[in-house]
C-alpha cells in the first residue's frame, strides 16, 4: 500500500476552506452498564463483567440505567442544549462480532439533547462557537483483539478474540453541526474542542475522561471545499483518534491529504480512515456510505424517557461550576498574570496545578514545577503532561524535600528523572543516588573562603555594593561542592561574611 500524497499545509488554503465535524463518544462512569446491572469497570479479566444481557443471549431484555440518563441530561445542559421532553431508544442494526445482539441500542431521530453550542477559546484568546447538533445515549461494544497480523492490526489478522466486558457500557455521543470558518486554525480548533468536551464531562463528574483509556473518543470528519462555494466537499471520517495530540495531527493530515487529492484532479473517497500515531498518517478503512442502512426502528423492549421540566431543573441545579467560570476563579485565586494563566491552560496542566495546590503547595510553586519541569519533558516524550508519569503527589514530595533544604532545584530535576525512570519514590531516589544538599554551614564557609580568596576583585566589587557580582562566588562554591550546596544559603553566608546587605 503506497503512502498517500499530501499537499503543503499553507498551500491548501490558497484554494480551499476546510469544514469539520466531530462525533465524540463519552464513556460514562456509572457503576453499572447502560442496559444491564453488570459492573462498569476497566481492566478486569476478560468476560468477567458480563451477564446474559451483555452477551445478548436468547431471551434477554434491556433495562435503562437511571444514573446514565441523568448524566446524559447533565451533559446536554452543560453543552447548552435543549433537553427532549420525550425521547425513545432505537435499534441500529448491523452485524459485527463486537456487537452481541448484532444491533446497538441507541437513539436515532429522538436524541435526549439537541441544538446546543460550546464557545471554544483558542490559545491566543480568540473565541470560536461550535454548534452542537445533538447528544444521545447509546451502549458501547465489546473489545476485539486481532491476532496474527502485524502489530495487532485488523489487516492480515488470522483470527480475533472478543472480550465483552466493555459491551453495554453507557456512552453519550456528541455530534457537532458542520464547523465552518476555522481556516488554518482548524487543527487547533479541533484539539481545543475535544479538550473542552473532555474538560466538561470530567468537571461534571460523569466520566473519568481519560482519553488514553478510551473514556473520550473522537471521530473527526474533514472535508474541503473551494473558497466561496456553498456546497460542502466529500468528507472522510477518521477514527482511532485517541489523544488530543492525535486529534490535531489527524485533522491537519486529512486537510493536506484532501488537498493533494483535489489538486491532482481526483475525487475524495467518502470513507472511514484510521489514524496511526506511529506514522502520523491515516489509512483507508472501509468505504463509508451515508447509505449504510442501519434499518433504524424504535426499540420495542424499552419505553420512552420523559424528561419533565421539573426533573431537568433539579439536575441543572446540581451542575458544578462550568469550566470557564472555574478557570476565572482559579486565575483570580492563584494571582497569575493573564499570560501565565493562559500558558498553564494551554499546556494542559491547570487541573494538575489545582490538585497540587489542594495538596498544600503555593500556586506559584506549583506553577514553577509543572511548567518548568513537567511540560518540557512531556513535549519531548510526545505525551500529554498528565500521561507523563509524574503525579501531583510526586511534586508535593519533591517540593517538600527542597523546602526542607534537603535537596536543591537542580537535584530536584534529577529526582524527577529518576521517578520517570521508575527508580521509586522521591525519597528513595534521593537516598539511592546520594543526592543531598550540604546543609552544614562549616564546609560551606570553607568553600566560601576559598572562593573569595580565589577571586579577590569580585570580593571587592561586592563589598563596594555591586551585589550582582555575588553570582561568581556562588558559582565557585557550587563547583567546589559539586552542586550539593543550597545556592540560597551560600549567597546568604557570603553576604554575611562580607557584611553586606543582599
Amino acid at each position, binding site marked *: 500500500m503506497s503512502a498517500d500524497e499530501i499537499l503543503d499545509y499553507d498551500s491548501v488554503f490558497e484554494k480551499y476552506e476546510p469544514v469539520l465535524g466531530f462525533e465524540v463518544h463519552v464513556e460514562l462512569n456509572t457503576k453499572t452498564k447502560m442496559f444491564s446491572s453488570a459492573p462498569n469497570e476497566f481492566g478486569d479479566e476478560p468476560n468477567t463483567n458480563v451477564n446474559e444481557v451483555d452477551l445478548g443471549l*436468547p431471551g434477554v431484555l434491556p433495562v435503562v440505567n437511571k444514573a446514565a440518563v441523568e448524566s446524559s441530561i447533565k451533559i446536554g445542559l452543560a453543552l447548552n442544549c435543549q433537553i427532549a421532553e420525550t425521547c425513545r431508544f432505537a435499534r441500529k442494526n448491523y452485524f459485527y462480532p463486537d456487537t452481541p445482539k448484532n444491533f446497538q441500542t441507541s437513539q436515532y431521530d429522538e436524541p435526549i439533547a439537541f441544538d446546543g453550542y460550546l464557545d471554544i477559546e483558542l490559545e491566543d484568546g480568540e473565541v470560536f462557537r461550535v454548534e452542537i447538533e445533538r447528544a444521545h445515549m447509546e451502549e458501547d461494544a465489546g473489545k476485539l483483539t486481532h491476532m496474527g497480523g502485524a502489530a495487532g492490526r485488523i489487516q492480515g489478522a488470522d483470527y480475533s478474540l472478543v472480550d465483552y466486558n466493555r459491551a453495554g457500557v453507557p456512552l453519550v455521543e456528541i455530534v457537532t453541526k458542520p464547523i465552518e470558518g476555522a481556516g488554518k486554525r482548524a487543527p487547533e480548533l479541533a484539539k481545543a474542542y475535544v479538550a473542552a468536551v473532555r474538560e466538561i464531562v470530567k468537571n461534571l463528574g460523569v466520566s473519568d475522561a481519560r482519553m488514553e483509556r478510551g473514556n473520550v473518543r473522537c471521530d473527526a470528519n474533514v472535508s474541503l471545499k473551494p473558497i466561496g462555494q456553498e456546497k460542502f466537499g466529500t468528507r472522510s471520517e477518521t477514527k482511532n483518534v485517541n489523544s488530543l495530540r492525535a486529534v490535531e495531527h489527524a485533522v491537519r493530515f486529512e486537510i493536506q491529504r484532501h488537498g493533494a487529492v483535489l489538486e491532482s484532479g481526483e475525487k475524495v473517497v467518502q470513507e472511514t480512515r484510521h489514524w496511526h500515531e506511529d506514522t502520523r498518517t491515516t489509512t483507508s478503512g472501509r468505504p463509508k456510505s451515508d447509505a449504510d442502512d442501519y434499518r433504524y426502528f424504535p426499540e420495542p423492549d424499552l419505553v420512552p424517557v420523559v424528561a419533565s421540566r421539573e426533573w431537568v431543573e433539579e439536575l441543572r441545579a446540581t451542575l458544578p461550576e462550568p469550566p470557564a467560570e472555574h478557570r476565572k476563579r482559579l486565575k483570580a485565586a492563584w494571582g497569575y498574570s493573564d499570560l501565565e494563566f493562559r500558558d498553564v491552560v494551554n499546556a494542559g496542566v491547570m487541573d494538575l496545578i489545582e490538585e497540587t495546590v489542594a495538596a498544600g503547595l503555593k500556586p506559584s510553586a506549583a506553577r514553577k514545577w509543572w511548567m518548568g519541569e513537567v511540560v518540557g519533558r512531556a513535549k519531548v516524550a510526545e505525551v500529554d503532561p498528565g500521561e507523563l508519569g509524574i503525579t501531583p503527589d510526586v511534586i508535593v514530595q519533591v517540593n517538600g524535600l527542597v523546602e526542607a533544604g534537603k535537596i536543591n532545584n537542580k537535584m530536584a530535576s534529577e529526582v524527577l528523572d529518576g521517578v520517570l525512570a521508575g527508580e521509586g519514590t522521591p525519597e528513595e531516589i534521593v537516598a539511592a543516588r546520594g543526592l543531598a544538599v550540604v546543609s552544614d554551614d562549616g564546609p560551606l564557609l570553607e568553600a566560601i573562603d576559598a572562593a573569595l580568596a580565589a577571586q579577590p576583585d569580585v570580593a571587592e566589587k561586592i563589598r563596594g555594593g555591586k551585589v550582582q557580582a555575588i553570582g561568581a562566588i556562588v558559582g565557585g562554591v557550587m563547583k567546589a561542592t559539586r552542586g550539593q550546596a543550597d545556592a540560597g544559603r551560600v549567597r546568604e553566608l557570603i553576604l554575611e561574611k562580607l557584611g553586606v546587605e543582599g
Partner: protein
Amino acid sequence: MTQDIIHSTAAQLAEKLAAKELSAVEVTQAHLDRIAEVDGEVNAFLHVNTQEALDVAAEVDAARAAGEELHALAGVPIAVKDLIVTVGQPTTAASKILEGWHSPYDATVIKKLRAAKMPILGKTNLDEFAMGSSTEHSAYGPTRNPWDLDRIPGGSGGGSAAAVSAFEAPLALGTDTGGSIRQPASVTGSVGVKPTYGGVSRYGAIAMASSLDQIGPVSRTVLDSALLHEVISGHDPYDSTSLKESWTGLAAAAASGDVKGMRIGIIKELHGEGYQAGVENRFNESLELLKAAGAEIVEVSCPNFEYALGAYYLIMPSEVSSNLAKFDGVRFGLRALPEDGPMTIERVMGATRAAGFGDEVKRRIILGTYALSAGYYDAYYGSAQKVRTLIQRDFDAAFAQADVLISPTAPTTAFKLGEKVDDPLAMYLNDVATIPANMAGVPGISIPGGLADEDGLPVGIQFLAPARQDVRLYRAAGALEKLLEEKWGGPLLAQAPVLGGAK
C-alpha cells in the same frame, strides 16, 4: 391409577396433593409414564426432564411431610414450550441453530415455577422460533394432533397444546405473538390464554416480535389456566415492558360461572365468510347458550381488522429480523463454516444462518429486513404501526359497547399435515382472528366450543377483553365452559380418541 391421575385437572391434583391423597412423586411419575407411552406418536416433547422433575416432586413430598407451607400448585407438573430458557435443560426454539444449547440463566417465569415447586416435565415442540401455525416448521419433526394423528396440532405452540390434550401434562406454558397459544388450543380442544401485553414477564422468552410476544398458560380447563396465570404473572424489573399490576382473582372469576348482565360483543369482521361452516355452527351455539344464561349479546364492528393481518406481517418480521440477528455462531449455538472461499467471520455468520435456520424463518427475516430498509420504512413498517393505532381505536370503540368480545378462535378446524405448509399465505390466514389482540396488546382466551359437524374436530371460541381486564376473560370463559360441559355431559376431551396402550 395412572389414568385417574393423568385425567385429573391441575386444580384436582392440587387438592389431592394438599390432602396427601397423592404424592407428588406419584403424580410426576404418572405423567412421565404417559409421555413414554404416547409421545412416540404425538411428538409433543423435544426433551423430557425426568430426573429433575422427580427430584422436585420428592422435595415437595418431603416438605409436605415436614409440615412446611407450600404453594397451592406445588407438585403439579408442567411442560414448557421450548422457546423459554431453562437452566439444566436444552432450549432449542425447535431450531438447528440452537441444537443442544444450554442457557446459563432461567426465564423469570421459570423462576416462578421453581419457587412454587412445580416439577417441569420437559420442553415442548413448536414451529421454529415460533414462526408458524401448525408446528410443521419445527426442525425436529412435527407434533401430531391427539384428535387425529394425521393432522396438525396448531402452531406455533402445538407441542404444549398437544401435551395437555394427550394428557401428558395437566399444564403447560406457551407463547403467543399472533395466536400461537390460542389457535393450537382451538384445534386441540384445550384452553389457552394470551395475557395483557406486559402482564407476564418476557425475560427469558426467546424474542420473536418484542411488541407482540406474551407468555401464557395452556391447560384443559379455564380454572387451571387461571391458577397458572396467577403464578406466572406480575411485574418483573428485568422486563421494561412489564406492567406494575399483580393479577389476582382470576381463579375466583373462572369458578364463578356467572355472565348475567355481561355485554358480549360479536366482532362482525371475525366470523361468517371465510369461516368453516362447522366452526360457525358451534360459534352460534355458544352465543345461544350465553344469551340463555343472561348475557347481553351485541354486534360490534372493527373495520380496521381487515388490515390487521397485513400490518402484523410487516411488524412481526421486522422485529424478527432484528431479534434473530444475534444467532451468528459467535457466542453460542451452531457455528457452520463456509464450504469454500475465504474464512472470514462474515462468511461464517452467513453459513451458520443458512445452515441453522429453516425456510420459514429465512422468509420472515428477509421480509423484515426489506420492510425496515431505507426508503421502504414509511410505506411498510411505519404504516403498519399506524394501522396498529387504528386497531386499538377499533377495540376502544368496541369495548365501549361490550364488556368482552367473542369470535371463533380460528377459521377452520385442524387441517392435515402437509396441506398448507407450501402455501405461506394460506398458513398465515389461520391467525386472522387471533392477531388483532396481539396488535392492540389486549388479552384473549380460547376455550373448546365443541366439535365441527363435518369432521368431528375441535372448534375454539375466543373471548377478548380490554387491556388489564384479564379477569373478564376468565369470568366469561368459565361460564361458557360450564354451560358447554353441561351440554356435553363432561369435558370435550373426554370425546377424544384414546391414545396409547390402555384402551
